[in-house]
């Protein structure tokens, strides 16, 4: 009990510390200041794009991992979820050597299409997708594994094509897990720092997202850093409180029904 209380305190104290030191009288000024708004806007846009790409590529990947037997599947799974446990800076460095101007793929993007990812907004989206997608893949794969494959079999025998089956049977059944995974991925993308600053740099307006500007502000204007940090905390907190109950609980209820 006492240990649990210490744990709660351990998580609560930093937040209390921020609230304690927050310059409430200037808070609105700091938030509505141009550079903050730009960073906030960039953060939202990039994280939403990253979430969209995570869904677009992550759902087929989860389906492949859950439904298709192929040699080396566990290796592919480990590879695709590696960035969950990788230090984000390492991920950023790896991305740099893959997609940078001298990277194995990046040099051709540069030479053939005159297209460069590092230090661009697109680069931010790539870095965020890299770290965020595994959260969606893991969540959706678990839901697909719990889903009775005979539901899809039933749809197929009724005359449904594989795509129609996926759209009308599989997808609705995993929707709660997909929503939960998307929220997790979005939250992860929103808070992304290490991979972004390594791969995309720290340019106001193009690659400086909110976490980056918090870090920058800490050196020049600690009060502003506190306010921006609180903005991020507020967003994350709202996501957890508002969506956790609705989607996570529903996902649990669905999975318990599947097991019946």
């Amino acid at each position, binding site marked *: 009990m006492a240990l649990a209380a210490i744990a709660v305190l351990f998580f609560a104290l930093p937040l209390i510390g921020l609230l304690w030191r927050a310059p409430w009288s200037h808070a609105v000024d700091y938030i509505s200041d141009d550079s903050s708004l730009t960073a906030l806007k960039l953060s939202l846009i990039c994280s939403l794009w990253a979430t969209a790409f995570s869904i677009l590529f992550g759902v087929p990947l989860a389906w492949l991992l859950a439904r298709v037997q192929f040699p080396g599947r566990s290796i592919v799974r480990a590879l695709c979820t590696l960035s969950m446990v990788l230090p984000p800076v390492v991920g950023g460095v790896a991305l740099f050597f893959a997609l940078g101007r001298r990277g194995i793929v990046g040099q051709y993007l540069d030479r053939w299409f005159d297209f460069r990812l590092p230090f661009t907004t697109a680069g931010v989206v790539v870095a965020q997708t890299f770290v965020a997608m595994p959260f969606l893949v893991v969540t959706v794969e678990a839901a697909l594994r719990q889903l*009775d494959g*005979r*539901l899809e*079999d*039933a*749809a*197929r*025998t*009724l*005359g*449904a*094509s594989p795509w*129609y*089956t996926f759209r*009308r*049977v599989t997808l*609705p*059944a995993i929707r709660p897990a997909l929503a939960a995974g998307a929220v997790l991925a979005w939250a992860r993308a929103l808070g992304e720092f290490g991979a972004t600053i390594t791969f995309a740099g720290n340019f106001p307006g193009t690659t400086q997202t909110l976490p980056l500007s918090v870090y920058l502000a800490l050196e020049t204007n600690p009060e502003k850093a506190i306010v921006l940090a609180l903005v991020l905390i507020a967003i994350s907190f709202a996501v957890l409180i508002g969506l956790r109950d609705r989607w996570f609980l529903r996902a649990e209820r669905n999975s318990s*029904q599947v097991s019946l």
Partner: protein
Amino acid sequence: MSLRAHITHHVGALDLQVELDVLPGEVLALLGPNGAGKTTLLRCVAGLSPIDAGCISLGDVVLDAPATGVFRAPDQRAVGVVFQDYMLFRQMSVLENVAFGLRARGARATDARKVAATWLDRVGLAEYAQQRPSALSGGQSQRVALARALATAPEVLLLDEPLAALDAGTRATVRRDLRQHLDTFEGVALLVTHDPVDAYALADRVAILDAGRIVQTGTLAEVTARPRSRYVADLVGVNLVAGDVADGVLTTPTGARVVVADAPTGAAFAVIRPHSITLVREQAAQSSVRNSWVGTIATVDRLGDRARVGIVGELPLTAEITTAALDALQLRIGDEVVANVKATDIEVYPA
């Protein structure tokens, strides 16, 4: 159009080798123990498990023939399936479940719903159209699953243990309703069950599947009158002995000898009914009984005035005697007994 399935298929430990021909309008029950390959056989016909070798065809249409590279996907076959546990789509209304097949085949939503509504009406569930499947009882779910499969007008209907998940009370009602729908169904119907009561009530013909092989086909009466597998013998409750007959004696593979009467020479089955067996403590010096086997009592099950006594020994047998006789002889598990059977009480037929 008749269904022809000549299948060789391996999955896990199961080695399925089956030749099956079913006529339109006929209901064939696949009866057999768990793991015999009944559901696997259905999955092969539905196209959910491509076969290793052989051929499945419906009339002139080849559905699966690995040798010629023909394989029709499940959605390209006129096959409807009622799954065990029904597999209704939980996110859709009951009506949308029944309309699913038609919509998947490209029908307009309104047209599909119209057809689905008539099917729901036919299975007596019109008032549940807008409900979710979770609001239905087991028997109602089964009827929706049946309506959903029949709504696409399949030429083959596959039913996998359609009554197994129901409690005894609803079972009889649902079985009777199912019988009516199968009567009006003009295509081929294949029914998987492990319950001979279902097979008797629903099927025109049964095929006994055991360890991946069809060991017997015919009407249920024919099959049970002359069991050809341990499974059917257990179902009917008789002792089945397989062996070779020579000079009026059937010899089992383990060397036990059974004296029989009027038996043709060659491989044969002998049925020894448990109530034909008499048990004695010691071998009589002189008797008209031609068969006496010494054994040890392994099990005793009392059922009212009767007791079934399981004996292990040179010829494993189950004998049925009165509990009065059991008590008089003071027979207990582990006792040695002699089982006597008159040769004329044993029924013998060629294997």
